[in-house]
């Protein structure tokens, strides 16, 4: 018997209980969940401290400064192990190791599943949304603290040590967040649905990545009580070796988040390559999936360098090795090279998913197929490949051999060619289109506006003579905020506004969404554009004192930053109100998308597809009178008259009527 479409509409998931007690398979309080994870973390932390103190409290340096890095590192590491054990992330491998058969996977019910180690990629995706928002807002608050200090060039709101700790914590938290902000929540939720799979290739690994990500949050937050760390997110040695206890949180935290990134990367690669539905050929793959394939390759290949480099740093700080201490035979350049060999691909880890998201949004709201699909996909792969050959542009003034400088200038500038493809696809798609200015579309357009400034300023940075002036200044800082925040974070919110109706079955309040968008767009630019000028006028990054004449620009930026932060309050209010407090049901396909993920009922069934669909066409046949069905169920839908309610997936430009079908479709709601 068929599922009745209208009954499924408007049924949200979070905060909802099953219809009867019998459906609740277990109480949310029983078993393993975030509470037991916390208990495990605390126990592991205490054990680690104990072991570390037994090992190293007699070391000469520890006796002198009473700072036992061995204990800190072990405490944090065992704390993470305890966290994983507590939440049950290691149950399966442990049971397998001891020769027992783990319990079969069941469909979890109720709100308790959002606090558990779960195998449903849709639940993990929702967990990730809350997780990255926590990261994002924590980092944002730290940014507010940083901007507050910069209100005055000479009087100080925080102490200088606290200030650089805040800067470092902000940078690190944001970088960790940005690695997963789309690949975690949005990609985790959507990959199987977009490629026609019932699950991720390794559901346990996906959940493991998430719980590592959250463990990383806890670890990096311990940096502040440990006295912070003075190095910024780049963690340059030997300052890293010299720093107080918070540095251990940085090194362990990046190792933990990094391990989660590596596993997430492999999972995404394997899923995309092996779990595509029949007919989902490479040329029919949504552009978002292409971007994720590129990103996942970077995650899997670049992150190990960071983890290894961090391990050397940990050894320098605990076992008194000297990987990064020049006077003892090490090299500070080693860290710089290892870090940026990860760090520059990392930058594209943060850019590419954003391009993928807007690549999905544009066709829907222009009513046109994606222009230059192949070029766009090739551009993403090209960016991913080239990103491994540009890292030394961070070291132009560092004192390494200068003979490679022209080469790295070339590779860095070359990368703007594949990045330009993204603009080609965007502009081509807009050509003579019919733009619907829904909220996700606004965010996508904003990305093109912002990222242009970020990208063009990158060309200035790549030019070695200009780099002499702008390197290490606020110009760089404005540049990468324009790419990461102006690109990735805008894409993330665009993606949320676009896909949340499918993920939650709830409609977000449009008025609040619009207020959020315009505040965020305007004040983002007001915050960061002046910082290009501030940098050009000679203000280095991460300083708590600056020239008097730059106070006006800095204050303008700070006040704009407060407004920018309040735009996220609007979002939070909207999110809470529309999803939890006063939910309004969303139609199954409110935007009239042809994407495979939108053709499912809301909420999406546990296994996504009862039968794996056979894919007939790519999802971009917009604006065509005789658009092909995208999969074998499409026809069923059309004949049943659901085409209207699905917002014109049937083609013939019906998508453009979606403005009316939103109301008209699920008329029975």
């Amino acid at each position: 018997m068929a599922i009745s479409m209208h009954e499924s509409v408007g049924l949200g998931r979070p905060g909802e209980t099953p219809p009867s007690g019998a459906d609740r398979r277990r109480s949310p309080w029983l078993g393993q969940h975030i509470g037991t994870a916390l208990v495990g973390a605390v126990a592991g932390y205490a054990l680690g401290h104990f072991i570390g103190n037994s090992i190293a409290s007699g070391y000469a340096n520890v006796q002198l400064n009473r700072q036992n890095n061995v204990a800190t590192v072990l405490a944090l590491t065992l704390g993470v192990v305890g966290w994983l054990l507590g939440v049950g992330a290691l149950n399966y491998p442990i049971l397998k190791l001891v020769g027992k058969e783990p319990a079969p996977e069941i469909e979890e019910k109720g709100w308790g599943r959002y606090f558990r180690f779960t195998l449903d990629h849709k639940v993990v995706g929702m967990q990730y949304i809350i997780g990255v928002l926590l990261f994002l807002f924590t980092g944002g608050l730290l940014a507010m603290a940083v901007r507050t200090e910069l209100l005055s060039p000479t009087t100080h709101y925080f102490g200088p040590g606290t200030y650089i700790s805040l800067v470092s914590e902000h940078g690190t938290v944001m970088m960790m967040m940005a690695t997963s902000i789309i690949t975690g929540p949005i990609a985790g939720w959507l990959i199987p649905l977009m490629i026609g799979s019932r699950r991720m290739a390794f559901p346990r690994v996906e959940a493991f990545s998430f719980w590592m990500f959250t463990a990383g949050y806890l670890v990096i937050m311990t940096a502040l009580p440990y006295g912070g760390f003075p190095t910024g997110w780049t963690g340059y040695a030997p300052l890293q070796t010299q720093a107080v206890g918070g540095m251990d949180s940085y090194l362990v935290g990046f190792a933990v988040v990094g391990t989660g990134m590596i596993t997430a990367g492999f999972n995404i690669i394997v899923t995309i390559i092996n779990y595509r539905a029949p007919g989902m050929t490479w040329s029919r793959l949504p552009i978002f999936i292409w971007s994720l394939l590129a990103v996942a390759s970077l995650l899997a290949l670049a992150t190990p360098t960071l983890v290894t480099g961090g391990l050397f740093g940990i050894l320098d700080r605990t076992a008194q090795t000297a990987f990064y201490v020049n006077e003892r035979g090490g090299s500070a350049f080693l860290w710089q090279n290892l870090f940026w060999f990860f760090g520059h691909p990392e930058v594209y880890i943060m850019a590419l998913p954003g391009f993928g998201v807007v690549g999905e949004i544009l066709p829907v709201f222009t009513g046109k197929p994606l222009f230059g699909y192949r070029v766009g996909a090739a551009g993403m792969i090209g960016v991913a490949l080239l990103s491994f050959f540009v890292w030394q542009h961070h070291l132009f003034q560092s004192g390494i051999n200068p003979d490679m400088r022209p080469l790295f200038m070339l590779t860095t500038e070359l990368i703007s060619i594949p990045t330009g493809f993204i603009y080609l696809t965007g502009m081509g798609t807009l050509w003579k289109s019919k733009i619907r200015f829904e909220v996700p579309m606004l965010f996508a357009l904003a990305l093109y506006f912002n990222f242009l400034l970020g990208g063009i300023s990158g060309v200035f940075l790549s030019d070695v003579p200009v780099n002499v002036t702008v390197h290490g200044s606020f110009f760089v800082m404005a540049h990468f905020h324009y790419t990461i925040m102006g690109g990735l974070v805008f894409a993330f919110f665009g993606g949320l506004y676009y896909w949340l109706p499918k993920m939650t079955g709830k409609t977000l309040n449009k008025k609040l969404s619009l207020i959020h968008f315009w505040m965020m767009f305007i004040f983002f630019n007001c915050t960061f554009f002046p910082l290009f000028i501030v940098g050009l006028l000679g203000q280095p990054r991460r300083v708590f004192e600056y020239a008097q004449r730059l106070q006006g620009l800095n204050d303008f930026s700070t006040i704009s930053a407060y407004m920018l932060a309040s735009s996220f309050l609007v979002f939070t209010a909207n999110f809470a109100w529309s999803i939890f407090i006063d939910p309004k049901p969303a139609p199954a396909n409110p935007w009239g998308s042809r994407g495979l993920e939108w053709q499912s009922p809301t909420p999406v069934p546990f296994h996504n597809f009862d039968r794996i669909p056979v894919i007939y066409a790519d999802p971009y046949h917009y604006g065509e009178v005789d658009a092909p069905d995208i999969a074998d169920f499409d026809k069923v839908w059309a004949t049943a008259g659901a085409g209207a309610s699905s917002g014109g997936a049937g083609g013939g430009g019906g998508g453009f009527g979606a403005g009316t079908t939103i109301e008209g479709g699920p008329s029975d709601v």
Partner: protein
Amino acid sequence: MSDQQATVSRTAGGPNHGARLAVAWLVISAIVDPLFWFAAGPHMPPGDMTSSASGAQFDFNVLMMAALPVTLGVWLYFGYAIVNWRASKGGSDLIGGPKARGNMKIQTAWIASTTIVVLSAFVFGTVELIVPAGAGGGEGPQPIWTPTSKTVLPIQVIGQQWKFTYRYPTYGGFETDTLMVPNNTTIAFHVTSLDVIHDFWAYQLGVKADANPQQDNVAFTTTHALGKVTVRCDELCGIWHGAMFNYGHVVSKTTFQQWASSNETQLAAVTKLLPPFSWTYTADANGADGVYYPDNVDKYSKIQVYGAQPVSVAQAVKPTS
């Protein structure tokens, strides 16, 4: 559906958007580029006190000549699209199908033009890097792009947590907190550190070089105007990174001579205590208490201060090999 078909026929054969955009773009570029070059260009950072500063300014302005039309062109396109191609206005012809999915000519033209721009930027940047002797950036211990001038004044910049000091090897190797630079002179800044990594950024001089322990990072520039110089540390180096700045001056050659000779005399007693002049120094990784590394090899000795091998002044005058 019929409404939409009506729309299609109504707007078929509309205006030539491409031509309109191209003309608008050319007009805007023709206005903005010269405006920037002549009005703003001469005032762009970091000024023109030295060869490397004016080089950086020139490069910045040249890149702006390309960046302004590209940025404005893309924004113009998006603005035009937003104004003209809205669903609420009915929009123009519906183009679905293969024609909307790609256009070989446009794609090729796009790729070709971006490639040309990028390669030109590369060639230009490389010439501007090599010809003015490294453009003021730190070239490491073995600079490969060196100035043509026969006389080069070496100034050693020593970074330490948290101040910069300057040694003048050709004036007896005295060390001072003040940076004085003679005008119309080619300078070789030898930047090094006694502890963590710092970065010597003499903003108005257009010089930037990381200060690494045990490394001599050389940057060249030639002064051609008198004035005040702001020096800031540009690599995060700990608590006082933000306060690690001081000021220097480009002064006439005679003033510099007087200043240097009088300092050489006045600071002779201090200079005698300093380690012999060297391009790099070996700091004790352990510090005054001698405890980080447990083997006592680096135990802070009274003889081993920050000195290393002495170099002859002859070597110092012509630092490049």
